[in-house]
C-alpha cells in the first residue's frame, strides 16, 4: 500500500472495469491529497474517462474499492457522488440552454421559499459564490449564445455550489481558446489554494507541467506511472505515454501547384449587426497546406460551413477546381472533390448510434467502391473500414461497435481516417487533432503532409497555433469575419499572429 498519510482525501484501489471483452480499467489505483491537482494522461482509449466516470458514479466498476476520508464508499449514481462532495465538469457540458446562469447553477439543490423556488435568493447566492471564487458571471443571463469559456465557468460554479471538495475535469481545455485556457488554469490553481482537490484529464503536456502537482500515466487500461510533476519533463511524459520517442518529420519543399479552392469576396451577413464573413478572399493550391488562424468565434467555422454548403452565403464566389460550388447543396460540393473533417465529431462528423463501419463511409457511400446500383457493397465496405481502423490505429473492439462507445479521441481518429483516405483534390480539416493524444497527433500531421505531397490542397482550421505554424505553407489570420493578414511559412512569428488574431494589428488594406 501507498502513502496513507492523513491528508489522503480519496483513494481508489484496484479498479477494474470491462466492456464486453475489453478491459477499460485494469486494476487501477488512484489517490488524491487535499488541495492537490492531479493530472491524468494517456493515449486515446487508455481508460481515463472510464476511471473518472466510475468516480462520479456514471459507471459501476466490476471490482475495486473507493475510500473517501478513510471511509469506504460505493458511488451508486451521480446524485450520490455529489452528496459525497465529488463534482465533475464533463466534456460535453450539462447545461440547459434556455435557462439562466443561476437556474443552471442551483439545479438540483434549489433554495425554496415556502412552496416556491426562491429565485431571488438563488441569484444572490450565485453572485456571492461568483465573487468568492473570482469567477465573474451574470446570474440572470441565459446560457444560449454564450461562448464555451463562459459555459465552462458556469459548470465550475455549479460544482462549487454543490459544495464539491473534489472536482474532476475531463479534457476541459480541448474546446477553449488559448486565453480561456490560461484563465481556467489560473482558476484551478486558485481553487486548489482554497483547499479543493482537482483531477484533470488532458492531452496537453504543457498544461500538466503548468498546473499539476502530480501526474498519473495510463496505458491500455493500466496505471503505468504516478509521479510528482517537478520530477519529470514533457519529454519523459510523452515517452511514457506513447512508449516511443516522437520524431518530427521534416516537411519537404514543394512549390504550390494550380489553385484548387478559390474564394472571392465571400459575405455572410448573419442576423447580428456585424457581418459574420466580410469580403473574405482566399485560395488554396495543390501541394499546399493553408492554415486559418483565429480565435474561435471569428467566422472560421462559418467559412468552412459555407464552403461545404451547410450555410447559405449572401454573396461571393467559391470554386473548386474551376467549378462553381457557391451555395451548392452539400452533396454536389462533396462530389466536386471536397472532403471535410468537421469541427465537432458528434454534431457533424458521425452519429453516435451508428456502427464504426457505417461511420467509416458516411458521406462517401455513394462512391463506386462502396455501392453498385444503389446496393451497398457490404464486403468491400467492411474491409475498407477494417483497413482504416488499423491504419489510423483506432482503438475499437470491432467494426460493429457503436461509434458513441469509442473513446473521444478514437471517434475523432475514425472521422479523420475517413476523410483523409478519400482521394479528393481538396481536404478541409477543422480541428483535426482535437482530443487526440500526442502520438496520434504526430501521425495525423504526417498524413496531412503526405497528402500535400501527393498533390492535394489542404485547408486547415485550428485553434492550436503550434499546429498551424508547423504545417501551413501559408497562413491567413481571420478576425471579426475578415482576413486580417496573410503570411508565407516562416515569415511570421507566434507573437504577431497572436496580435493579429485579436485585432491589435489590423490589415492596412481594410
Amino acid at each position, binding site marked *: 500500500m501507498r502513502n496513507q498519510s492523513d491528508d489522503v482525501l480519496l483513494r481508489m484501489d484496484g479498479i477494474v472495469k470491462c466492456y464486453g471483452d475489453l478491459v477499460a480499467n485494469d486494476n487501477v489505483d488512484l489517490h488524491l491529497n487535499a488541495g492537490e491537482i492531479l493530472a491524468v494522461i494517456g493515449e486515446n482509449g487508455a481508460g481515463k474517462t472510464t476511471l473518472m466516470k466510475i468516480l462520479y458514479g456514471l459507471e459501476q466498476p466490476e471490482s475495486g474499492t473507493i475510500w473517501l476520508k478513510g471511509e469506504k464508499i460505493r458511488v451508486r449514481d451521480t446524485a450520490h457522488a*455529489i452528496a459525497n462532495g465529488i463534482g465533475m465538469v*464533463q466534456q460535453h457540458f*450539462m447545461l*440547459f440552454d434556455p*435557462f439562466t446562469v443561476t437556474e443552471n447553477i442551483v439545479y*438540483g439543490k*434549489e433554495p*425554496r421559499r415556502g*412552496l416556491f*423556488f426562491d429565485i431571488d435568493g438563488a441569484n444572490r447566492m450565485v453572485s456571492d459564490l461568483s465573487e468568492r471564487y473570482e469567477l465573474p458571471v451574470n446570474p440572470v443571463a441565459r446560457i444560449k449564445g454564450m461562448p464555451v469559456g463562459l459555459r465552462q465557468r458556469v459548470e465550475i460554479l455549479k460544482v462549487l455550489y454543490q459544495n464539491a471538495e473534489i472536482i474532476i475535469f475531463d479534457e476541459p481545455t480541448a474546446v477553449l481558446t488559448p486565453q480561456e485556457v490560461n484563465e481556467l488554469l489560473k482558476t484551478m490553481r486558485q481553487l486548489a489554494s482554497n483547499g479543493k482537490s482537482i483531477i484533470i484529464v488532458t492531452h496537453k503536456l504543457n498544461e500538466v507541467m503548468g498546473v499539476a502537482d502530480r501526474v498519473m500515466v495510463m496505458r491500455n487500461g493500466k496505471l503505468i506511472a504516478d509521479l510528482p510533476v517537478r520530477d519529470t519533463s514533457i519529454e519523459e511524459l510523452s515517452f511514457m505515454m506513447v512508449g516511443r520517442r516522437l520524431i518530427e518529420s521534416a516537411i519537404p519543399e514543394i512549390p504550390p501547384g494550380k489553385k484548387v479552392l478559390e474564394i472571392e469576396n465571400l459575405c455572410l451577413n448573419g442576423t447580428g449587426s456585424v457581418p459574420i464573413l466580410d469580403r473574405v478572399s482566399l485560395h488554396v493550391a495543390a501541394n499546399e497546406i493553408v492554415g486559418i488562424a483565429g480565435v474561435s468565434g471569428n467566422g472560421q467555422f462559418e467559412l468552412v460551413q459555407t464552403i461545404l454548403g451547410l450555410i447559405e452565403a449572401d454573396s461571393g464566389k467559391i470554386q473548386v477546381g474551376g467549378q462553381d460550388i457557391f451555395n451548392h447543396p452539400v452533396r454536389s460540393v462533396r462530389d466536386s472533390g471536397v472532403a471535410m473533417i468537421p469541427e465537432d465529431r458528434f454534431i457533424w462528423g458521425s452519429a453516435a448510434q451508428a456502427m464504426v463501419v457505417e461511420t467509416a463511409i458516411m458521406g462517401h457511400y455513394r462512391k463506386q467502391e462502396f455501392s453498385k446500383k444503389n446496393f451497398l457493397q457490404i464486403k468491400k465496405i467492411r474491409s475498407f473500414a477494417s483497413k482504416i481502423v488499423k491504419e489510423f490505429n483506432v482503438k475499437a473492439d470491432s467494426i460493429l461497435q457503436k461509434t458513441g462507445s469509442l473513446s473521444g479521441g478514437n471517434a475523432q481518429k475514425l472521422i479523420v481516417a475517413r476523410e483523409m483516405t478519400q482521394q479528393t483534390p481538396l481536404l478541409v480539416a477543422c480541428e483535426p487533432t482535437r482530443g487526440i493524444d500526442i502520438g496520434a497527433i504526430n501521425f495525423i500531421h504526417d498524413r496531412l503532409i503526405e497528402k500535400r505531397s501527393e498533390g492535394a490542397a489542404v485547408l486547415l482550421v485550428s485553434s492550436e497555433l503550434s499546429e498551424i505554424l508547423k504545417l501551413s505553407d501559408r497562413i491567413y489570420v481571420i478576425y471579426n469575419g475578415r482576413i486580417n493578414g496573410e503570411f508565407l511559412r516562416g515569415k511570421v512569428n507566434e507573437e504577431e499572429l497572436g496580435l493579429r488574431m485579436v485585432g491589435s494589428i489590423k490589415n492596412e488594406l481594410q
Partner: protein
Amino acid sequence: MMSDANYLSVVFNSTIRMMTPILYVALGSALCNRVFIFNIGLEGTMLTGAFAAIVANYYTGSILVSLLAAMISAMLVSWVAGIFMVKFKGAMLVVGVSINMLMAGLTTFLMQTIFGVKGAYVSTDLVSLPKVDVSFLGRWPVLQTMFSSLTYLDLFAFVLAILLYFFLFKTVTGFHMRSVGINKTAATSLGINADRLQIGTIAFSGIGACLLTMGGVTMFAQNITAGRGFIAMAAATLGAAHPLGVVVGSGFFGFAQSMANMLQNSAISSQLTMALPYLATILALAIYNFTQHRR
C-alpha cells in the same frame, strides 16, 4: 330576433361549455410536452374517463364516485402508457395509437356487455354535475346568460390553468419538469430521476381527461370523444405548452365547436358545419407552424 349582446353572450356561454373538456386535456398535454412527451394516447384516455364516469354513474348514481372513477381510470391508462413510453422506451406514436385503438374497442365492447346497447347509452337515471347558481346575476341578464348552466368543474378549469402556471414556472418540481424536456441527459446526470418525472406527468395528464360526460352531456356513445383528444393536443401546441396560452388555444377550438353547433340550424349543410372544428384545427396548426418556421 336576439339582440347582438344577447347573441354574443350565448356564443360565449357555449364556447365555455365546449372548451373546458378540451382545456383539461390540453393542460395535461401541455405538461407532457414540457417533459418532451408527445402523448397522442390522450384521445383514448379521454374515452376511458368518459366511459368510466357513465359506468360509475349508472351503478352508484353518485356524482363524486363517478368523478373519482373517471379520474382514476383515466390516470391508470395514462400511467400504463407512460411506463411503455419511458421505461420500455416504446415509440410514443405507437404506444399512443395502441392506447387509442384499444380504448375505442374496449369501451364499445363493454358498453354492449354492461348496458346491452349498441351505439349509444342514454338514460334519465344518470345524474349530472350540478350547475352553478347564477340567479344573483339576475340584474344583468347578459352576464346571467354568459355564465348559465356551467358546472363548478367548468370554472375550476381556469383556476387549474393558473395553478399549473405557478406550478410550472415558480416551483422547484415545475422547474425540474421543464428541465427534463430541455435536456434529459443533463437532468439525469445532475441526479434528477427524469424517468419518474416523465411517467408521473403522463399519468397526471390523464386525470383531466374525465370531464366530457359529466357536465354538458350525460351519456356515452361509441367514440364520443370524436377526436377531441387530438384537438386538445393541438390546443396545447397552439398555446406553446404554456398553461395560459393553452386556455387561449382551447378557447379557439371551443369557439369553433360552438359556431359549428349554432350553424347546424342554418342553411349551410350540416356535413360542412360539423367539419368546422377540425378544419379550424388544421388551419390553426398550419399557420402556427408556418410562423414558427419563419422565425
